[in-house]
Each structure stands twice: as structure tokens, then as C-alpha cells.
């Protein structure tokens, strides 16, 4: 199983918004340059622990942060 997952968002503003929302929910999060094979939409993506994927997307959805998609890393 992959150790990490990456959440792709529309823009770096959304990436910072997602980072804040996830940090406030005490989830581990790191901003990384978006892996080029996954997307060229936005320069930054959110790396999370693969185990937190469900919790993270739920928290973001509840906060109204639009997510493009989530990919294993």
C-alpha cells in the first residue's frame, strides 16, 4: 500500500485553504509541488498519509474546499 496520497486542487489559494482546514482537524499535511504526471493545473498539491485519505476528504468537503481528485503517491 502507498504511504501517501496526494490531494489535487484548483489553485495554490485552495491548497493553503486545504492545508489550514486539515491542520485544524489535526491531520498531518504537507504542501508539495504537484507531481507533473498527475496534473499541471496547480503548482502545489497536498500530501497526506494514505491512511488519512477518507478523513481528510470528509473534512475538506465539510469545509467547502473544492477538490479536483485524490491520487495515490
Amino acid at each position, binding site marked *: 500500500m502507498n504511504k501517501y496520497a496526494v490531494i489535487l486542487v*484548483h*489553485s*495554490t*489559494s*485552495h*491548497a*493553503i*485553504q486545504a*492545508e*489550514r482546514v486539515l491542520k485544524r482537524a489535526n491531520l498531518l499535511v504537507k*504542501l*508539495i*509541488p*504537484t507531481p507533473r504526471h498527475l496534473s*499541471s*493545473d*496547480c*503548482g*502545489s498539491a497536498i500530501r497526506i498519509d494514505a491512511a488519512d485519505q477518507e478523513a481528510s476528504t470528509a473534512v475538506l468537503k465539510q469545509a*467547502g474546499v*473544492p477538490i479536483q481528485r485524490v491520487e495515490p503517491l
Partner: protein
Amino acid sequence: MIYLDNAATSWPKPDGVNEAITRFLCDVGANPGRSGHRLANEAERMRFDAREAIAALFGLSDPLRIVFTPNATAALNIVIQGLLPPGSHVVATGMEHNAVMRPLRMMEQRGVSISIAPCGCDGTMRASSVDELIRPDTRLIVANHASNVSGTLLPIRQVGDVASARGIPLLVDAAQTAGCVPINLGADNIDLLAFTGHKGLLGPTGTGGLAFRDEFDIGRLPPLIYGGTGSRSEHEVQPDFPPDKYEGGTSNILGLAGLAASVRYVLDRGVEAVRAYEAGLIGRLIDGLARIPRITIVGPCDPDRQTGIVSIVIDGMLCSEAALAMDERFDIMCRPGLHCAPLAHRSLGTLPDGTVRFAPGPFTTEGEIDQAIAAVAKIAGGDT
């Protein structure tokens, strides 16, 4: 030196602004949205801090519905040029600044018709005056929140009720009120709010923006400026989501770093507290000036109905002459003239001579107000 020109730009700035700007310049420096390295991310965090603080100030839940522009004028232009097709109609008030009137007059050349809701000689207006001018082809209502000439507050919530009842978007020019008068886009029925960062928000010049109410569909409003955003880089068309849709080109992140700190100060002190403090200063200034012969105060002469501005006319004296004497002899900075708002002066009856405007701020003291009153008394008494 006494600075009473906060309606032009506020000064001094609160603690934390200088530090935030310096931190950006010395320790961050990067371009938000562009590169994905840790400094670029930190720059984006600083810009996001500003969005979050301003969203909180205006009662918005989504910080990304705060779009940054160089000033309120640019924000007003996005909406005025974006929502008025040729053949449409717009209602504005008799207290508008040229930041609204010049784009509107340009749109008139493109076939837009304009109606101006009349204001009294103290600048006050009834919301029904706006309602009466609405036509089937009215596409936008533009309203000044408070006059930069007389400080007169317009009944913005009632105008919002009219706009909402008629289903017409309301654009509010909050250049004189953001940070010193409570504003809530939802409760006030304001669809679009243009704000500047360097007046009541106490931040650096070159900052401002547009706030969108949750209900406003931004799909209706095209950008005015198109360009790089760091997002959707493989596409040659502008992103359709805020804030990127309206933020083509590198933003003034240096200024926004300072703005985040200044708005945080305003939130900590409280807009209601700032409003009450400035009302106290204005009341004191009005009382003192009203006792001086040859002085006419322009506006409502009521701190509850105006912002931190008092404009006066000195009988038989040019306002420029009075302001020069205030500066050179009394070390007091104020502003004479027409204040870029000829329409407001027409409503107030102060064309073509203009007024001398005193605009204290949240750091002005009562002692400074008393010194200003004494200086005006000397100047008006012929002691020039």
C-alpha cells in the same frame, strides 16, 4: 505634527504592519501560486492570511471569495465594466466618488444609461429614492457607503433590501467605511463590495479588492484583466474560479502581507470600538468648529450619521489658503478642494470652491482635535 487626512490614506499604521512587510521582504520574498517550493507556499500563506482576515471582517465564510486588486477603483471597474451591457441601465447615488462616476460616464459612451438618486444638501438619501429609479432594464445598483467629502453614511442596508427585493445586484463602494463601520455582506444584502486596504483597513497603499456575497454567481461577471495565475497552466483561457479568475498577473504580496497584519489589528480592536472611538472624535470636532464664526460645517453634523470626516467652508477664504495655513503655521495635515467627487459636491452645494476636510483616525487623540479646532479659530478669525 497632527495628521488629519485619514480619509485620503490612514497614517500611522498599526504595530505589526511594518514587521509583516519586513518579514516578507527579508525572509519570504517568493511569488505565491507559481512555484510550489516552501517560500512560495509561505508567500501564499501570507496572502491567505489577508483573505481570511477580510472575510471575517465582512462576515463571509469562504476566504476565496475575497479577490485582491490594486485599489477600490480597480474593483469598482471590474463590476461596472462587467455587469453593464450596452443598452442597460444603472442606478447610482448623488454622493458617488469619481472612482464610480468616471467608469460610469465611460460606460455611458458604450450605450449604458445612468440614473442618479438625489441626495439632500447634507448628503443624506432615502433608499426609496433608489427604488423609484429602477426600470425593467436596470442591471446594477451602485451605492457609496459613506461620502469622502462629508462623511455622510447612506442607508446601505435599506438599499440592499431594495436591491434584493428587485433582484438587482448591489455594488457598494466601501472605500470610506471598510474597517471603521460594521459591514456584513449577508445581513446587508450587499452582492459586491469594493474595498481599499490603505484607509480604514490601515494597510499599505496599492491594496484593495472585491468581496462577493455567497449568493452572487461569479459566472455572471467576467474579469477585466486576463493573465497568468499559476493555475491551469496548460490552458490559454482564464480560470473560471475565484480568486484566480480576477487575479491575473503577480499580485502585490508585499502590500498584502502588511494588509493581513493591519486587518488583524482592526479585528482585535473591533470595528464597533473603532466606530465608537471615531464618533467621539467627530462629535468633539463638530462641537468645537460649530462655535467658530465664519465656519459652515458641510454634512449631517451628527456622529451617528457620518464617518470620521468633517468638512467645512470658511466664509470669504479659499479652502486651499486655509489648508496651507494649517500645514505651515500649525503643523496640521488636512485636505482642501473637491476630493475627486464633483457629484457629491453638487449634492452638497459646495461646487466649485470645495471644502477643507478633517479626517481623524483610530490613533488620533482628543488633544489633537482640540489643537485643530484652535487652529481653525485662529485662521477663521483673520489671524493668518
